[in-house]
């Protein structure tokens, strides 16, 4: 009776390839949940159609701090009542502008940093926005937000090594206290 020869190489390769596939494709699917923003918003309508600049909404305050996303109150300076028949705009006015003292929209922020990181936008004023943020100016819709199921941070939240690399490349200090106050 002839003895079967064990197949070793092929299963090894199969296991290796399967892991690569699962690790590079399957794992991210499992790790991140997809979240849609609470409202749809078109940057393109505002920038292209209304000729607004980025700084009209994303501006530095007088004291140099960065306003980040506009507040509902500031949006209401134009959208106190619906200006058109866009369902998203109507929903915004009904659910947020007319709700008490201007209820804030719980936007998901793609690059939100943890509280233990102090990031000053004005200190990075010379760097192009798109070096860290995707260029949203002509987007019709807001991209899907991927939330890390473990950490609860955005997939696009910049990691410390990225900050450090840029600081090192540009001769900026990488001392702890520069970012961790």
């Amino acid at each position, binding site marked *: 009776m*002839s*003895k*079967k*020869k*064990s*197949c*070793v*190489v*092929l*299963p*090894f*390769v*199969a*296991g*290796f*390839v*399967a*892991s*690569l596939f*699962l*690790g*590079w494709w399957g*794992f991210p699917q499992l*790790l991140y949940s997809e979240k849609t923003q609470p409202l749809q918003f078109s940057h393109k309508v505002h920038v292209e159609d209304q000729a607004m600049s980025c700084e009209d909404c994303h501006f530095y*305050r007088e*004291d140099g*701090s960065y*306003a*980040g996303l506009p*507040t509902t109150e500031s949006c209401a300076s134009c959208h106190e009542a619906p200006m058109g028949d866009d369902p998203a705009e109507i929903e915004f006015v009904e659910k947020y502008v007319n709700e008490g003292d201007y209820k804030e929209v719980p936007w998901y922020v793609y690059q939100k940093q*943890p*509280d*233990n990181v102090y990031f000053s936008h004005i200190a990075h004023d010379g760097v192009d926005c798109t070096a860290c943020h995707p260029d949203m100016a002509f987007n019709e819709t807001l991209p899907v937000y991927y939330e*890390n199921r*473990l*950490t*609860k*941070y955005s997939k696009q939240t910049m990691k410390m090594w990225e900050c450090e690399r840029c600081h090192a490349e540009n001769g900026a200090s990488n001392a702890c206290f520069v970012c961790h106050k």
Partner: protein
Amino acid sequence: MKKMGLDRRSFISFLAGGTGGILFTPVVWKLLDDASIWSQNWPWIPRLSYGALDRKSALCKLGPDAYGVEVLTVGGRPVTAYGNEKDPASKGGVCPLGAASVQLLYSPARVKSPMKKDGASMVPISWDEGLSILKDKIKVAGDKVAMISGDETGTAAEVLAALVAGLGSDQYFLMPSEAGPAVRAWQNVFGGDGQPGYDFENSDCILVLGADICQAWGPGVGKSCMDAKATGGSLLYAGPVENGTAAVADEWIPCMPGTEAILALGVANALIQAGRSADTMGMSEFSDFVRKGFSPAQVEAKTGVQAAKIKDLSERLLRAKKPVVVIGSEIGQGLSTFEAAAGMSLNFLLGRINQEGGVRIVPWAEPVFEGAPRRDAMLAKDLVAFLEGVAVGRNEAPAVMLVHEANPAYALPGGQSMANSLRKAGFLVSFSSFMDETAAMADLILPASYSFEGFDDSYTPYGSAKGTYLATAPVIGPVNDTKTAGDIILAVADELGLGLGLESFEEVLQARAENLGADWSGLLEDGEAWTSERTAFQFFLSMWKVPFDADLGKKGADGQLVLAPVVKLNIGSAKMATPPFNVLTISERELQGQDCFVAMNKATAAMIGVDQGSMVKIASQSGEMKGRVQIFEGVVPGAVSACLGFGHTAWDDFSRGKGTNACDVLLVQGLDSQGGASFGNPQITVSRA
């Protein structure tokens, strides 16, 4: 040819391949990284809230002083308090309580809703029920309603006094302070009008007798003294303990506790000997009085200050172009009318009344409500004297006692006996924002909003050289189910049909601003203080128009140990326990575990037979306290210094049960003919505990 087959070896090979493969993916490294981040993100960790930075003007009334602060808000949420440079009482500084003022919004000791006593405990009730209970009690009490307020400069106290006066009662009391005896002295002893203030900033020689002005009179006072020093002026401090004011003074003149008034009259004698006189009636009688009873030798024997130093002090005052003398108590309360007058007499002799760099008399603000008492009428009434009268049956206990921004059950002399007097009131109502000792024993708590949560104001804190007025709008809405004290009282008055005439406390403050001629919107929006350089017109001043007080010379060194209490605002004040934020500022020489320290110098300790760290019992005729001995050469021989602010029985875990209450040892040493009670420095016995 052998057949190839999948067997156990193949399976292991598959697993090995898979394991090897996984190492070439992000799985392991990403999971490790994320797991470490996950471990930092527990749900109970507070999150920062982001938003626009803003500064809103507010008031700090947590200590004996009242001054303006600016509260930094982020996205509308208060974060921290800074001084308000536009307020003369603050000059951009904050006291240790002001530094903790924002965190106190969220103190665990906050009263979260109206409560009523139910057996031995307090149960939450609605505002409607609370107001209805109070209305019914006041209706039955009629004119037997009394009030105590710790808000000496605020109009809320006046609203409460207007209610009490409207009911036909004249029992409106303010908590003991420096202002009470100073105003009684100015009005009754010298025949003046208005509130004495001190132009420290423009003085070239400031003699401070007892009062810890650089700590407890508002951050602006300390800055003014430093400004005076910076321009060549001198700051001299006489008192029993090297306290905050002594520490920054050019010279500390050690003086037996409670004898600063004797020292003042000794200096007055020296000034008269040097030819100084006041061109007013009563001068010759005053001259005779000090010459007979306050010779340098007599004063040295009582105060422990050498005769040569007394002469030196008088000469320095005479040499100065703009000297000013201020007298007060180390703890901001407990001075008698005549002790206050003794200090003021030096300003008379030096011709410093209503002079630049001297004493300036600020006019009173007229009451907003018709029939309401002016502040001087409230200061004329002595709460300690009244409650002591209740204790001994001399005064009838009120049927309803209303307590506002004050903690008399803790902070009055002989704490327990005063608390017992309060218990004799038929119905005790507290408007406290915090569960203090008085609120804990109240029958009803109608919690007032914290100062930052509502409209508030302050008119000319005692000591201010000019008239000032600050009014502030809410920095944040009520964190708990509370209402502004003024609005609660207006609602009660409305329920009782007393109709004070104004609908809201905001309207009351607007009326006050209008009376003063202040710009209401400027006060609220810019945090600008209204100020006035006007001084009060004095109709007829005389040098000591009432009989001289026979007790004035009785205190002093006679071999008995004397208590020298001190106040440290980081530990607390008469109305505020130690804020949680300040716990770490209390040193191991002040509190160790549950034991507080009492300080004495080495000679005193040797005389008693105790060492550093010994546990001792300090007793007066009024009560007792315990503490560990701290050897400190900054206390005069024969005196034991104890810090007020410990020994709370209510509040929260940050202050309850820490040390013992030195107020229990303070003893009312008699009432003067002007209605004032003196209680600062009792004779004590000290023994090992």
